């Protein structure tokens, strides 16, 4: 599997480490209810198909990427640098 890093280009899977599901939202402490924390920590959609997930290119530029990958075919349909400041950059 190759992952396209917006910074470094197509790189081998072994240069990356998996951070996890990118769709879970960390609750905002002042208003968060216990159920919000439960969902954040434990509940996952776990789809068979396109999945938005975080990978760190720690064998390269060390950026954390948001990758959309098909969990059935391993096809990667998009990557961008994760995080609010850089959202939308990359491919």
């Amino acid at each position, binding site marked *: 599997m190759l992952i396209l890093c917006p910074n470094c280009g197509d790189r081998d899977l*072994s240069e990356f480490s998996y951070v996890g599901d990118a769709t879970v939202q960390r609750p905002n402490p002042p208003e968060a209810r216990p159920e919000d924390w439960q969902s954040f920590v434990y509940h996952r959609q776990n789809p068979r198909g396109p999945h938005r997930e975080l990978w760190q290119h720690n064998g390269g530029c060390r950026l954390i990427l948001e990758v959309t990958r098909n969990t059935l075919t391993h096809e990667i349909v998009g990557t961008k640098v994760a995080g609010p400041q850089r959202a939308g950059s990359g491919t």
Partner: protein
Amino acid sequence: MARFSAWAVAKNALSGNRNWTSQWRKPDPKPSYDVIIIGGGGHGLATAFYLAKEHGIHNVAVVEKGWIGGGNVGRNTTIVRSNYELRPNALFYEHSLKLWEGLSQVLNYNVMFSQRGVLYLAHSPGELDAHATRGNAMRLHGIDAELLDRDAVARFVPQLDMSDHTRFPIVGGLLQPRAGTARHDAIAWGYARAADQLGIDILENCEVTGFLKKGDTVTGIQTTRGDISAPKIGVAVAGSTSEVLRKAGVDNLPIESHVLQAFVSEALKPVLNTVVIGAGGHFYMSQSDKGGLVYGGELDKYNSYAQRGNLPIVEDVHTMMLALCPQFAKLRLLRHWGGIMDMSMDGSPIITKGPLPGLYLNAGWCYGGFKATPASGWCFAHTIANDAPHALNAPFTLDRFNTGYTIDEGGSGPFPRLQ
């Protein structure tokens, strides 16, 4: 259907083995059953068998989208053990091991359970201390465990590289003598045949595509072979748990699906007399009765529903194997595949009533569900029949993640890929 016996083997040999009949019927679905079990893997079939045998519930269908034995039950590395430290796990897996010990007789099917021992290597004094702790916990739960020093390991497994300069020097190990391996297909076929003989319908090529509901209550299933209704529906679909329950409107399970790879070498004469688990627990191997080395390592560590993995793990697994047994470098890899694991958030299973009225859930087996098959079916059948868990599976609830009673054997936290 005829029982298997030495007499039956001899009799059929005389007639050229032309008169064996098929192992289970191929019935058409009935419109309704008392219980439907979704998933014809080891756990689903065992559940159906124990529903009939222990609870007298015979009007049961097992609904399987493919063929019997095509899922993880036919894809695993067949290690059976009960060397757990936490009490719920220790009691549950030891119950399973006890069921394994009598299983060939109970099923009238040779499951080739071979108690050749499982040896966890220790590569540092610290790891040996941790093994001692685990061994003590096991013995307190009445489970067999022996701490081996370096010399005892060398005598027990002559194939290991015991020199000091290897990547993983061996300082000792923890042996569970009653643990071992079994024949994976035999478990699927043995439970299927025995369940069928008790009147259970095994419906192959029957994929569940949706659920019939009255309000929140699940009353039946939609399948590629038509609608079937039942007041009680058990789900035991391993890696497909999230996808199947989503069809019932449940999409917040503490489960991720991950791929685990397995490897078999070409056959060779007997070289390995036990199961060796080493390199910090990340590598395991045994030798099958056909002669091939059966081995594997860790998950690929990203969500996956592809029943094949990637190359870094292939390299990783073989690096560990050669660090322990350099002489295996000359072997050729014969077969290699992957299976989809239902990884739970604490590494322990879920066997429970719910999450909706009419539904029962059996999931979260991670990479340890083969050894659990008998106890899983036994406890799930009890839960379905009595609408309440047995003491052995009472801790394996779904809401333990909300109440703080997680059972995290590895101490890894809520990260399925690390369990």
